[in-house]
């Protein structure tokens, strides 16, 4: 198994005829993803350059292909609309690659799309190595295996996955959840999914300063995830204090999202925290009782 995505998941691409959409559709197909079509209003009835059917609306695409997953490559002013369209058409998992969505659009979307798992926005997507990928991750650095990976950062994920793969740790599913203030899928959502995934034996979580997702994740692990070891890494211990949410935001979340607070939370939950990415494989080997 794996979470959120496997070989059979039927995927459409919203914005398939655009530059980015077309390029990454080709990459997804070559990785083995079951991309069944795409959507570009006004180009319905045509074929994409990959030979896939193009539809005017997501509804038509879903009716014709039975797609359940979508990958969204549309410019920021149209991304919320694309997400609502996907939800309305019955899509159950949407990956939104688009960067720069107004946060109020995202608030509206996450508040009114029950039943649809949104990954992102502003994220690299997800991959179940050896099966399928949705998004823009570089497939060649991944390897099928039993480690679940979740990360707020794109390139940092690649860094960590690269180290895991080179150390012999393959991955069940890797989810790049994105680093925006409001995202559809948070650490806890992924942890819950990994908890129920037989293929996943251990989890690597790459957090960052800011917000309280890591603290929430630590609380969840303590409560619900005794069976599967988790290793964490927190980026940005020496980064400038985040300016984006201001003081009122910090008071809302009950803390100031410092690296210290996050590390302390993980340690209290029995989760080893790597000092640096290169320490992750070693800590993982320790917890799994294997040698790298």
């Amino acid at each position, binding site marked *: 198994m794996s979470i959120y995505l496997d070989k059979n998941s039927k995927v459409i691409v919203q914005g398939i005829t655009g530059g980015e959409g077309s390029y990454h559709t080709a990459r997804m197909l070559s990785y083995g993803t079951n991309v069944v079509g795409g959507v570009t209003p006004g180009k319905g009835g045509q074929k994409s350059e990959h030979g896939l059917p193009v539809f005017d609306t997501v509804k038509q695409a879903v009716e014709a292909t039975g797609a359940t997953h979508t990958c969204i490559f549309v410019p920021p002013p149209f991304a919320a609309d694309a997400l609502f369209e996907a939800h309305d058409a019955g899509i159950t998992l949407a990956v939104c690659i688009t960067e720069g969505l*107004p946060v109020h659009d995202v608030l509206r979307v996450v508040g009114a799309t029950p039943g649809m798992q949104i990954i992102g926005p502003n994220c690299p997507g997800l991959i179940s190595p050896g099966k399928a990928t949705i998004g823009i991750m570089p497939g060649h650095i991944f390897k099928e295996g039993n480690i679940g990976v979740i990360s*707020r950062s794109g390139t940092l994920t690649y860094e960590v996955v690269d180290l895991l793969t080179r150390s012999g740790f393959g991955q069940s599913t890797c989810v790049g959840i994105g680093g925006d203030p409001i995202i559809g899928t948070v650490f806890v959502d992924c942890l819950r999914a990994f908890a129920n995934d037989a293929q996943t034996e251990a989890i690597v979580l790459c957090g960052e300063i800011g917000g309280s997702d890591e603290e929430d994740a630590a609380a969840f692990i303590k409560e619900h995830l005794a069976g599967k070891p988790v290793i964490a890494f927190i980026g940005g*211990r020496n980064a*400038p204090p985040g*300016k984006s949410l201001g003081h*009122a*935001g910090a008071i*809302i979340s009950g803390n100031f999202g410092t690296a210290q607070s996050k590390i302390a939370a993980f340690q209290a939950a029995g989760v080893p925290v790597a000092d640096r990415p*290169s320490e992750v494989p070693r800590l993982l080997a320790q917890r799994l009782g294997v040698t790298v």
Partner: protein
Amino acid sequence: MNLMEFQGKELFARVGIPVPRSQHCHTPDEAASFVAKNPGKWVVKAQVLMGGRGKAGKIKFATTADEARAVTAEIMATPMPPNRQNPNGEPIHSVLVEECLEIDKEAYCAITIDRTSKKPVVMVSRFGGMDIEEVSEKHPESIAKKAIDTAAGFWPFAGRELAFASELDAGFRKQLPAIVGGIYDLFFRYGAKLVEINPLALTKDGRVIASDAKVELDDDGLYKNKEFAEWQKALPLDEDESLATASGLGIRNFRRFPGTVGTMANGAGLAMATMDAVKNANGEIANFLDVGGGANAERVRKCYELVVNHTNAKVFFVNIFGGITRGDEVAKGIVEALNTTTSRKIPLVIRLTGTNEEEGRRILTQAGMTTVATMDEGAARAVELAKA
């Protein structure tokens, strides 16, 4: 984008939040002429983004035109002094001449975004006029919070709950739902990440009025309101932000520190990890720099020049995880960038991973640059060079 008080209050007025009568003035004469035409007791407030105006003597009172002219001149004569929040201080280009309220009670009211519940959250406290961080430390129980369901929208009960839960003076109670409705409306209509009324004043004659206004708008949503482009141009950026935008980077993609190891990476997460790696190698960071996607020659050259010319960097540690981009292409970009720059040269340490990484490293080595295989190794090497 942070707004100045007069801008925030203009938005308040549009959504029906009561604000004091006021006039935005750019010169002492303008202030004097306004007060001459409108007799009464006025307060003159410097229009800056920084806090601490009162302590800095940048809020003064005037009852005559001459007084208004004099205090405006005095306020505008010197910039806001530096503080921790802004070590450069801030020039004062205008003042707000405002009705002097006879305040009976002060409260606090704000809306912001809660990452955890993924909802806008309104906060109310009966302690107004002081920094909310201080209230949060001294009287945490006094802060009432309420998440608003975006599907339902704002309904007055949320305002009533906040008024009762925060034990606001009864004088605030009737008006609070409309005030909270106003900031919720402003929040979505103008794309605000924070709207703060501190203090929200209850006047002796029973009015509830926003005495100050702090509004932070979401940069990603500014395009929806054309007028904000004008406002943005008029607002001061701090030096790092100006440098970032001048180099074609996002406003938050560059920040300076006092150290000597310059850094550049692609992606904010990796850029932060790169800084951490330098720290782990006992080095001091000169800057944070996220070059974003697509590290082409032009982009790399601009970043190199930014770090060389505007930080204390003695070495430049470039950490690129190729991902989809091919390593050889990135390498060519770096070489070309370094060949075309006219800025002084400092040593480069380059860590390049991704597709065709070996080929990329070969290109760099041929061009006489130091390449390393891992981030830790690169950090160690950069620190060594910086200390040399």
